[in-house]
């Protein structure tokens, strides 16, 4: 993995992107009223918490953070080689009529976000759903786009993007690489 790897974003880069996204969220929604952040398991969750912290620093308001696991809603659930573990889902606010911002680290095919929207809709009818991602690497297979993007990275399908976050991986950084070993398509939807 090491040979072809480039770091395309470092700790400060991630932080700057999230600060900008936080401002954009506040600008677009004219404040933080009625907003709930929802992080997708696993790395969307720390992103949601970081946005919560940044928005608190700017606006002095603590947005609620929900955690969503989309495994049961995956469209490839029955075709995977291994039955994936389902992680915790915990939405501590009412989905009904709230403005939800889905947070994830990478948007790729758009299938994860489709699943996330279905999962949220099952818990009520949100007023609005928006999407914040750290990296948009293209190759959408569904008509889905992100409202807030940390960085657009045009990639080839043979490349991989690996977002590392301190809360999960012990370090912050975004790596881009081309590695034929990483053939498993699991988890890359």
């Amino acid at each position: 993995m090491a040979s072809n790897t480039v770091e395309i974003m470092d700790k400060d880069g991630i932080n700057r992107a999230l600060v900008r996204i936080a401002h954009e969220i506040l600008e677009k929604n004219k404040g933080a009223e009625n907003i709930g952040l929802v992080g997708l398991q696993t790395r969307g969750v720390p992103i949601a918490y970081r946005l919560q912290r940044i928005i608190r620093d700017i606006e002095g308001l603590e947005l609620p953070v929900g955690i969503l696991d989309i495994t049961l809603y995956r469209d490839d659930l029955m075709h995977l080689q291994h039955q994936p573990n389902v992680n915790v889902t915990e939405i501590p606010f009412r989905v009904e009529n709230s403005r939800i911002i889905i947070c994830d680290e990478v948007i790729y095919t758009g299938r994860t976000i489709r699943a996330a929207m279905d999962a949220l809709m099952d818990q009520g009818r949100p007023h609005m759903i928006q999407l914040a991602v750290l990296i948009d690497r293209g190759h959408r297979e569904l008509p889905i786009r992100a409202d807030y993007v940390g960085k657009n990275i045009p990639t080839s399908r043979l490349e991989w993007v690996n977002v590392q976050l301190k809360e999960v991986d012990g370090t912050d950084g975004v790596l881009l690489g081309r590695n034929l070993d990483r053939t498993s398509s699991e988890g890359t939807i």
Partner: protein
Amino acid sequence: MSATTGEYIKTTPAIKDRSVEAGTEKSRGGDHIMDKDLIRIRTLDKEDIVRILDQAESFYEILDRPIRKVPALRGKIVVNLFFEPSTRTRTSFELAAKTLSADVVNIATKVSSAVKGESIKDTALTLKSLGANIIIVRHSHPGVPELISKQGDFKVINAGDGWGEHPTQSLLDLFTIRRKMGSLKDLHVTIMGDITHSRVARSNIYALTKMGAHVHIVAPPTLVPACLEKLGVKVHYHIEEVMEYTDILYLLRIQMERLEQSFFPSLREYAQFFGVNAKRLEQFSKEVMVMHPGPINRGVEISHDVADGMDTYIEEQVRNGVVVRMAILYLISREGAGRHDVA
């Protein structure tokens, strides 16, 4: 959201204390339980059990949602094939399967071709032709789930086979204990009642010892099978002997329908020596969790005051039954797993 901020519960840190570390789930996924039937606890290893309990933990919140449905098993056909009467197990499986969006067919033998003399094998072959993906079976003879499993590519879950095992009951019991106590290791669990005729006792003895708990049996000598100590349990004949260290008191139903011979002089005498009431519960050194797989015989193994009391987890067991069975159905449902060896 300032106007409604009060509705929000403080969120806890995202990654919780779970036995499967966050972030490693993609590399995990295993070749254990989900490739096989679930027929015996005896043939599961500890890792399988932990995985089922962890999955159940993740499914727990689904039952609190306004719409209790997730699409995980959409298009799957789950058959409840019950040759013995059951209310809670069958309903629990049905709710679990429906919550996961499976299509559920209930077959009660009183109204099925079994009364016309159709063999178990032919029933299984019929269900196979009808496209059953998962068959949940209860029968009064041990080994029937294995027999059914050999007939086709469907998965089989044992919902109780005679004196054999009742693995899903045992897993929901473990789940209930783990939720309350945090861990199963080194707990002292006393199982009291009719051990000989109890598949629940058998499955629980296997499961609890695998998880590192100490299992004590309290029963009249006539209701304890020979050589039970070989399973790693301690056998007592008086409840007083376990009062000092018991954490969990697991009561079993006196199974009137299986007691053709007399194993004890009278129900009244049994209740005298082995029935649990509030007064007896007070004699225990620790605060004990009282559990019972149901249905309960009030006034025999458990008194009204205990059955309705604060230390009793019977209702939690019922709720957790749905959650644990969802986890089992989910884990077992994967397509394309090769034909397996039946243990």
